[in-house]
């Protein structure tokens, strides 16, 4: 199996709030640093990545953030318009402008996901159907939260099975085959070292294995530094009862509190580590008021060392 960044399509998934977008963009920065023409895809159409780089927020356009690093925010509606235009010509345009058809397509369960992933697939093709679209070496998808994440990867196959024959079935099967090809597609799970995110990541690993999809890498994000040894804790506790400085007491409390959290984090990391042996990468907690380009570079450096 090729190394992660040698693949063409990488899905980054994980429970909400674990820093998926941050990891996706840090992976993108690393790929671009290695000379790959890379695009990071957002599916929630919130244009957060563009905000991170203070780029102008635009939907459904490939925006260059840095040399070699692009981003796009996919909106299912616009993905459908594009698909209809390319696939069905004037009839497609007629359908696209029919409000009834729009309502029907958008309400059909799973259709939004299918259209989004269809656009992702298109971005990963060397022969782009988007007029004037240049090919990418690597497409990184900031995928929805875990539960919906596997759903997203499964959508094309589901549609292929439901529709059986016809264009949707054909398209669905093509995309499903691409996703199932470990030479082409990779999956990265992001977790913070806490109980629920670790549970979800373990469940994800199982589900992916069941669907015979790859799980290339598990990233443990926001790991606190281990600042204190276990035998120093008694010293800190003793100092807390000794000192009369309010400020020193606050600082000692904060130290003890962080030590407790750091210890719990390491238990959770180890629980994850035993299950996904050899595929675990750690990223440090970033103590920053605002996550900007400088902080992203720190994470990119950490990924570069690990990959």
């Amino acid at each position, binding site marked *: 199996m090729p190394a992660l960044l040698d693949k063409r399509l990488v899905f980054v998934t994980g429970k909400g709030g674990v820093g998926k977008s941050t990891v996706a963009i840090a992976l993108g920065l690393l790929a671009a640093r290695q000379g790959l023409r890379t695009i990071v895809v957002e599916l929630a159409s919130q244009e957060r990545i563009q905000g991170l780089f203070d780029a102008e927020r635009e939907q459904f356009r490939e925006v260059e953030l840095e040399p070699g690093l692009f981003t796009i925010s996919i909106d299912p509606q616009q993905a459908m318009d594009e698909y209809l235009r390319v696939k069905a010509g004037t009839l497609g345009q007629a359908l696209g402008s029919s409000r009834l058809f729009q309502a029907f397509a958008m309400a059909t369960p799973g259709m939004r996901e299918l259209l989004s992933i269809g656009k992702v697939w298109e971005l990963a093709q060397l022969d782009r159907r988007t007029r004037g679209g240049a090919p990418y070496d690597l497409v990184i998808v900031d995928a929805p939260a875990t539960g919906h994440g596997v759903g997203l990867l499964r959508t094309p196959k589901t549609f292929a099975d439901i529709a059986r024959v016809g264009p949707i079935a054909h398209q669905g099967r093509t995309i499903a085959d691409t996703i199932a090809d470990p030479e082409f597609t990779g999956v990265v799970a992001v977790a913070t070292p806490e109980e629920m995110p670790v549970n979800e990541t373990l469940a994800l690993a199982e589900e992916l294995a069941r669907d015979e999809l790859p799980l290339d890498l598990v990233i443990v994000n926001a790991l606190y530094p281990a600042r204190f040894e276990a035998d120093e804790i008694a010293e800190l506790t003793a100092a807390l009862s000794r000192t009369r400085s309010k400020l020193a007491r606050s600082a000692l409390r904060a130290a003890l509190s962080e030590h407790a959290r750091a210890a719990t984090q390491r238990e959770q990391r180890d629980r994850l580590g035993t299950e996904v042996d050899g595929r675990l990468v750690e990223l440090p907690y970033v*103590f920053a008021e605002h996550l900007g380009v400088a902080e992203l570079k720190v994470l990119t450096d950490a990924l570069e060392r690990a990959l």
Partner: protein
Amino acid sequence: MNVAEMLEGKRVCVCAGSGGVGKTTTSAAIALGMAARGAKVAVVTIDPANRLADALGLEQLGNEPRRVSRERLAAGPLEVRGELWAMMLDPKRTFDELIERIAPDPGRAEEIKANRVYRELSTAVSGSQELTAIAKLYELDQENEFDVLVLDTPPSRNALEFLDAPGRLNSFLEGKALKAFIKPTGVGFRVLGRGALPLLGGLRKITGIDLITDLSVFFGLLGDMTNDFSQRAAQVEQLLRADTTAFVLVTSAAREAVDEAIWFGERLASDGLPFAGVIVNRVHHDLLGDREPRELSAALARTLTPSLAGRVADNFRDYHVLATRDDQNLSRLATQLDSRRLLLVPQLDDDVHDIEGLARIHQYLFASQAERERLIEDLVA
């Protein structure tokens, strides 16, 4: 303002927020607090952490609220005068039960449950969790066995999914859009009017004939039940808008979560849904105040070795960065939403996984203003 005041005269409390902000724990702590004050409360949650589920005696089986026993509650420091009930939502089962309830006969219900389109939409697809969570809430409200219902909304990246997804799925089930193309008759269908023909042709060309056939069979099976879906959607909407319903936003103090809480708050306002307040978890309170970090180094040097003192100071500096960050985000939140309705819960040493932990969070949620100030003072001193 505290949670008891926010929920004064309310029967339904919907806890909404983006993923990873402690929504499930907060919902359970709210339910515990209301039960402690004498109410009969049910909390409906979808995916609690294993240990918390164990602490509440939750099991996947049942799909109905079960009472949390006195023995379990006695493990915490709170005296519970009322009753705490809890349930873990099973979306697929809730969906099946909904079909069984509105189907004209059991045979039809079985046919629908075996239908491919139904199986797909009741399981794999996003939106079914949101729709069934609301359906369950509505049903429990109708049964009228509880004084207060607390709903922990399904985990999704985007909090707004909770408001948008059920509508999407419902409008599909109502079949309005499809009815324009085809008319379900029994289990077959016929094409409607000449105007619809080119569109139907296009639809076939794009989607494949089988999908259309499956869908029309599905809607044929649903028949008049589509009207029930419309009717229920309207009733659920009424419940969410009622004076006796309260939306509580749950967030952390991190920037993205706060952004999302603000969007959600604005959306509640524009939709005319009842906003009750915001609970901010994992807050790093400012421990430095107007003192100088130099004072800290001096004080630590008097009591610790230089190496240890240095690391305690480093830790404090990092903590203070987060406190400054939280402070900025919280003032943004307070300006955008009603600042009187902001309740802060500090970053705790450990994840909450038992009744005792819930009681600790409950302290911050139900404290009077004076008590809250004392709690924060304790953190600082």
